[in-house]
Structures are given as structure tokens and as C-alpha cells.
């Protein structure tokens, strides 16, 4: 018998005694009893993941609610967005055009046609109707 075959022959017998001593029925009973005593971990895993998902939702929804309640001036994202469009439009204007816009704007602000809240020069403090009036004036 060559070495490989001899080795495989020994390997086939390996652990036979341990296997023969095993009380399979008793082992099966113990396994079933342990499975019954300790419910499948999958339930815990599923619960943990649902908790994570719920926590993520709370953060997202809560964040959105908080953002919606912030004063307009602090909504950085919205401001940036609007500023971006305004900047694009202003880029198309010449220096003279820009001076005209500023002059017109000063005129509007100082006129009585638009009710500007007292003590304020901030456009954010105008309501929708007031803003529409400002825009209509700018259109000429």
C-alpha cells in the first residue's frame, strides 16, 4: 500500500470511536431542548434592525421638522439655493444695468407703495404679497 492510500485509510477510521460513543438520540433531544429554551437569535436580530431603522427615521423626520421651524435667515440650504439663482441673473447684467436695479430698488423701498415692516430692511421679513409687489415693480 502506498503512502497516500495508507494515509487515506487511516483518515477514514479517524474519529470512529468518538462517533460510536455519541448517543445520537440524546444529542438530538438536547439540541431541540436548547433551541426551545433559547429562541432563535434571528428574532433579536430583526428587532435590533427595526430599532435601527426607526431611529434613522426619527432622525430624518425630526431633522426636517426642526429645519422647517428655523427662522428663514438660518435656513442655510434654502438661502444658498436662492442666492445661487440671483447671482446667475446678476451675472448677465452690465455695471450700468446693476446701478439701475439698485436705484430702482432704493426707490421702491423708500416709496409708500410697498408696506415694509417698520425698522426692517430685510427682504426675508416681507410676506408673500409684499414680495410679489416688489417683483412686479422690478419688472417695470
Amino acid at each position: 500500500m502506498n503512502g497516500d492510500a495508507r494515509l487515506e485509510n487511516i483518515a477514514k477510521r479517524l474519529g470512529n470511536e468518538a462517533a460510536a460513543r455519541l448517543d445520537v438520540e440524546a444529542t438530538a433531544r438536547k439540541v431541540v431542548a436548547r433551541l426551545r429554551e433559547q429562541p432563535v437569535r434571528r428574532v433579536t436580530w430583526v428587532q435590533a434592525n427595526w430599532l435601527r431603522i426607526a431611529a434613522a427615521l426619527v432622525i430624518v423626520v425630526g431633522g426636517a421638522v426642526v429645519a422647517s421651524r428655523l427662522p428663514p435667515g438660518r435656513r442655510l440650504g434654502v438661502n444658498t439655493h436662492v442666492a445661487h439663482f440671483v447671482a446667475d441673473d446678476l451675472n448677465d447684467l452690465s455695471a450700468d444695468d446693476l446701478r439701475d436695479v439698485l436705484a430702482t430698488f432704493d426707490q421702491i423701498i423708500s416709496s409708500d407703495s410697498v408696506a415694509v415692516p417698520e425698522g426692517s430692511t430685510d427682504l426675508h421679513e416681507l410676506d408673500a404679497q409684499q414680495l410679489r409687489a416688489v417683483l412686479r415693480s422690478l419688472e417695470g
Partner: protein
Amino acid sequence: MAHPHMVPAVPSPDAALIRAWQGGDEQAAAELVGRHARPLARFLAGAGAPEADVDDLVQETFIRAFRSVDRFRGQCQFRTWLLTIGGNVLKDFGRRAARRKVLPLDDGVRDWAGDPHEHAEASEAEALLVQGLQQLPRLQREVFLLRAQQGLEYEEIATALATTPGAARVHYHHAVRRLKEIVK
């Protein structure tokens, strides 16, 4: 007339038992233990599990398998999958034993199988082989046992151990070469 080489698409008894267990049938779990406990015990003992602990390790392997059976997609035989779980259980056991005994173990299960003389009923050659297997890297040891002891094909071994059949073949030949030196 059916083609002589065609295998009828009958689900294996294991697959039916696994589905039954997933549906809460404890008897199905007990039957799966009955079908695979002895080959698993042979594998664990061959891989170096102390005989006194084989029963506990077999139980632990089945518990882990039943709890993660949703991950078994029939990529290999249930028994092969079970044996790989047994390998992990044995590795964890070796780590715990190493922490308790503070032994300088390199690969988790080395040496704790005990002196070959403890395997009183095993032949000298078997004892030497067990000792030799402890000196192999884990992958070589498991490939050798799955091939030589359990009689599995390289394709099956490769699937179970997430390697290629070619790599499994190389591991086997390395293992045989080293074990022959020890057992001769």
C-alpha cells in the same frame, strides 16, 4: 423515456427537513441531528476535538446551524455546510481553551487535543495522524478531513470553504505531503 443520466428533480430529504424546521417542526430538527451527528462527531474528533467534548461541540454546531439555516441556500450539501460550521465551533472552542490554559497556540486548536496517548483506543497511526493534523493550517486540515475522511469531491469542498477546486486540491496535496512525513 427518461435519459439514463438524468437525476429526477426530487428534493433531498435534508431540504424537506430544513423547510419543516423553518416552519417550526422540532421533530425535523431532531431528525437532521440523527442523520448527521455521527459524521459530524467523526469530523470534530479528527480535527482534534477532545473526546470528552465531542458531544457538546456537536450540539453547539447544530444549534448554530439551525439558527442560521436561512443562510443555507443549498450551495453544497447540508452535511458539508454543517461540517464547516463544526470547524468554526471547534476553532472558537480552541480559543476558549487557549485562554483558560494559557497555551501558546498558533492556530486555535493546536495541542489541546492532548497527548496521543490519551487516545487510548485509537491506533498509534491514528493518534499520529491526529497529532499531525494539529500542525497543519486550518484550511489544509479541513480540506484533508473533508476529502480523506468524509470522501467529498473537490468541487463540494471548494464551495463549502469558499475557495476553488484547484486551490482545494493544492491544500489537500500539501496536507498529504506533510502528514506522510509525520505518520510514516
